[in-house]
């Protein structure tokens, strides 16, 4: 009840003259607000009717129609390119439908901008947050509707209200803190607080857990459940079917821009959802595991420390092995490998390649030894999305095409070959990488780091933001790499992926290796036990 109370207070305080009220009258007003039927103001239903959307000659939504019931958590699932985001952008006012209409509470609406949608109580929380990093939390929450006292901004009132809005989402932070100083999970909660303080009645959340740790996810789910209790309708977009299953009341599946099914979540199993998303059986998601034949250790790291992230980490990698690295977000896995590659400062560490000591101080040095790394951050570190496909592919192996002048025709031929081999669809060699879907971008990024023919391949979250079909292709590709005698390290937050793919698993917690699991020990419960510190003292692989 306490949360409702805060909500009302926020609502009251938005009306400029009210914050000058005496404390007594404000309390009275709160009571009045609480007594009136607040649900009438907060609940909202939506119906899509034959929504079509064309981008140029291409139709991306085909007569999509379904309803979102009042006060429910409605999940929207589908592969990348299924049209989820487009549909949500239409609802959020960012795009206009080419045909069909959106009904809100039975009334046809035509939002010409996100501002109009917001006015109707519909707020889209982007996966990449819309926060001004250099402004404070309060300045962000009140961006575009600042409270004023005369000509000047009323900072103290905004800070006060922001504090309450933050408490509502379970954040106890100084509203004057800069957004850039927050961690991802806090930014997300700030986004939600911002939406709630704008009287959101329908909240659209796009992959909200993509970058959160299990603990943070739990907090978020509690918050979502509470918002539902307060009558907020929630539209939840996710790739993670177990989340959808646990959280939502109703689920809608889109595929190739078409509405496939809307059903009560309880009526569908995760497997059925997955099958509906891809339109075929997915029992063969992972390739059959093949034992790696050679016991030969090709790479060994000893006592690697990356200040602030990893302490005295040691492991060995065999030829043809797929070695997984599991752990919570912040366990230091990415930073460990960035340290190994020389991408961030390292305080200690010795490396052996085929039993010979080697130096690793830069990615270029690693590449010369046949070691490549693909970052988890595709747009920031993995792929030049503003460059064409061909130069992206050959970037790490340009010496093959420089005689000394670059043979662009040979590069083009190489691209055609690799596009076929990696099944990169949807682009000409000279089109920009940004034009590809997430899955195809990832396949291009993989093709790029494999182009110099490396012997040791380190993949950080290789299937992040990738649809189910492309995921499967990437799993089979990893298997194939191992079969060719290369050694693969997979860092992943998806336990099923690690279990389905890896020969051995290194579990990290707080920068330390806490366990090394062999084939028979690999289970979700076991991994989580090591990752959270229930099991495992610091060990070496």
């Amino acid at each position: 009840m306490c949360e409702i109370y805060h909500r009302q207070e926020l609502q009251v305080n938005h009306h400029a003259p009210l914050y000058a009220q005496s404390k007594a009258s404000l309390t009275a007003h709160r009571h009045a607000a609480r007594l009136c039927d607040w649900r009438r103001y907060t609940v909202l239903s939506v119906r899509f009717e034959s929504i079509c959307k064309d981008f140029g000659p291409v139709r991306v939504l085909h007569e999509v129609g379904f309803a979102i019931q009042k006060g429910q958590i409605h999940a929207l699932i589908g592969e990348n390119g299924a049209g989820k985001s487009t549909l949500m952008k239409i609802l959020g006012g960012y795009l206009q439908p080419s045909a069909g209409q959106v009904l809100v509470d039975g009334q046809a609406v035509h939002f010409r901008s996100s501002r109009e949608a917001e006015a109707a109580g519909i707020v889209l929380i982007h996966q990449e947050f819309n926060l001004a990093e250099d402004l404070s939390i309060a300045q962000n929450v009140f961006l575009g509707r600042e409270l004023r006292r005369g000509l000047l901004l009323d900072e103290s009132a905004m800070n006060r209200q922001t504090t309450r809005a933050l408490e509502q989402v379970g954040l106890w932070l100084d509203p004057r803190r800069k957004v850039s100083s927050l961690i991802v999970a806090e930014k997300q909660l700030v986004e939600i607080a911002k939406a709630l303080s704008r009287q959101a009645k329908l909240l659209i959340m796009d992959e909200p857990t993509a970058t959160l740790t299990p603990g943070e996810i739990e907090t978020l789910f509690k918050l979502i459940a509470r918002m539902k209790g307060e009558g907020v309708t929630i539209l939840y977009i996710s790739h993670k079917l177990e989340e959808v299953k646990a959280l939502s009341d109703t689920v809608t599946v889109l595929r190739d821009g078409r509405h496939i099914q809307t059903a009560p979540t309880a009526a569908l199993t995760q497997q059925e959802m997955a099958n509906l998303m891809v339109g075929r059986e997915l029992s063969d998601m992972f390739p059959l595991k093949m034992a790696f034949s050679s016991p030969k250790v090709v790479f060994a790291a000893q006592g690697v420390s990356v200040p602030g992230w990893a302490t005295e980490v040691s492991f060995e990698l065999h030829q043809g092995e797929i070695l997984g690295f599991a752990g919570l977000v912040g366990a230091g896995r990415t930073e460990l490998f960035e340290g190994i590659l020389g991408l961030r400062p390292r305080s200690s560490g010795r490396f052996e390649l085929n039993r010979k000591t080697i130096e690793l101080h830069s990615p270029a040095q690693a590449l010369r030894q046949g070691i490549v790394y693909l970052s988890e951050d595709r747009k920031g570190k993995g792929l030049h999305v503003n460059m064409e496909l061909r130069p992206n592919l050959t970037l790490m192996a340009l010496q093959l095409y420089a005689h000394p002048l670059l043979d662009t025709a040979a590069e083009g031929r190489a691209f055609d070959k690799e596009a076929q081999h990696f099944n990169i669809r949807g682009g000409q060699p000279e089109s920009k990488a940004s034009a590809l879907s997430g899955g195809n971008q990832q396949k291009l990024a993989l093709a790029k780091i494999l182009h110099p023919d490396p012997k040791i391949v380190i993949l950080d979250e290789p299937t992040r933001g990738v649809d189910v079909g492309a995921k499967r292709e990437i799993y089979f590709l990893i298997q194939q790499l191992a079969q060719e005698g290369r050694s693969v390290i997979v860092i992943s937050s998806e336990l099923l992926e690690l279990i389905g793919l890896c020969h051995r698993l290194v579990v990290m917690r707080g920068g330390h290796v806490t366990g090394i699991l062999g084939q028979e020990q690999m289970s979700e419960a076991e991994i989580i036990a090591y990752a959270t510190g229930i099991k495992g003292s610091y060990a070496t692989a």
Partner: protein
Amino acid sequence: MLQPEKPVADKPRPRFSFSGWGPLLGLILLCILATLLNPSFLSLDNIFNVLTRTAFIGIIAVGMTFVIISGGIDLSVGSMAALIAGSMILVMNALEPRLGAGTLTVLVGMLLALALGALFGVLHGLTITKGRIEPFIVTLGTLGIFRAVLTYLSQGGAITLEQNLSDHYSPVYYGAFLGVPIPIWVFLAVALLGGLVLNRTRFGRYVQAIGSNEGVARYAAIQVDNIKILTYVAVGICVAVATILYVPRLGSATPSTGLLWELETIAAVIIGGTSLKGGSGRITGTVIGAILLSTIGNVLNLTSIISVYLNAAVQGIVIIIVAFLQRGRR
């Protein structure tokens, strides 16, 4: 996920791209206009005159194109040209008694210029990459330093090349090969080489990759620092080449030598369609941009509609118009 699920266009849409043809179109229009106003504009003498004057800015702009594509900037080129010119003249004058007023002395002077240009480039590059200071700040600093040192060396006046040396050196600017002035040949050679290096070598590809996204380039095992340093060396050498052509023109260096060259150079690069944010750009565009800028001055000289004193104003308007036409291109 949230990027719009954009359909990948089946065939590239035929759309007029201003960045490709706009500057050239503008140049042609300007030339037609100039010819209508004063037919002598099209005379071979005048065209050679314009191109020769373009050579200094144009050559530096070729180097600057690399720096800007990689995401950097060099504000010091004008001051650097002045300091190199002054140092070159001082050393040649000092060597004249020993080596004579002949080719040898001039050659030593030229080599010194090239070495200085490369050295300044290395210093810029190291300060920017290893010292992790913004290129704008570093080169703003050296802009002041270079010119101040030159002013000190010249004691506020002029450093003048000995007459004998000057006579021997002057063909480098005033001479011609196959009827075409030497500076134009050099300009052409530098531009062709620049285009080749940018589009057909690993270095050029890496420069574009770094400008497009430095993080991705670093993770793709590109030695980002080295490539960046090399772009500043390239522009330094281009400044040296331009100075080598410039010194015989007046035979002296003064505190106002190369004044505002940095702005004209950057303007030429931007007019040519290179993004100030880096990532992509073209040498041909830069060359056309440089020619366009000097043609404006020439046209104002030849005609009397707009005072030649307003040269910079007209250039400024052209820069803004070009920027206007290119906006929204990304």
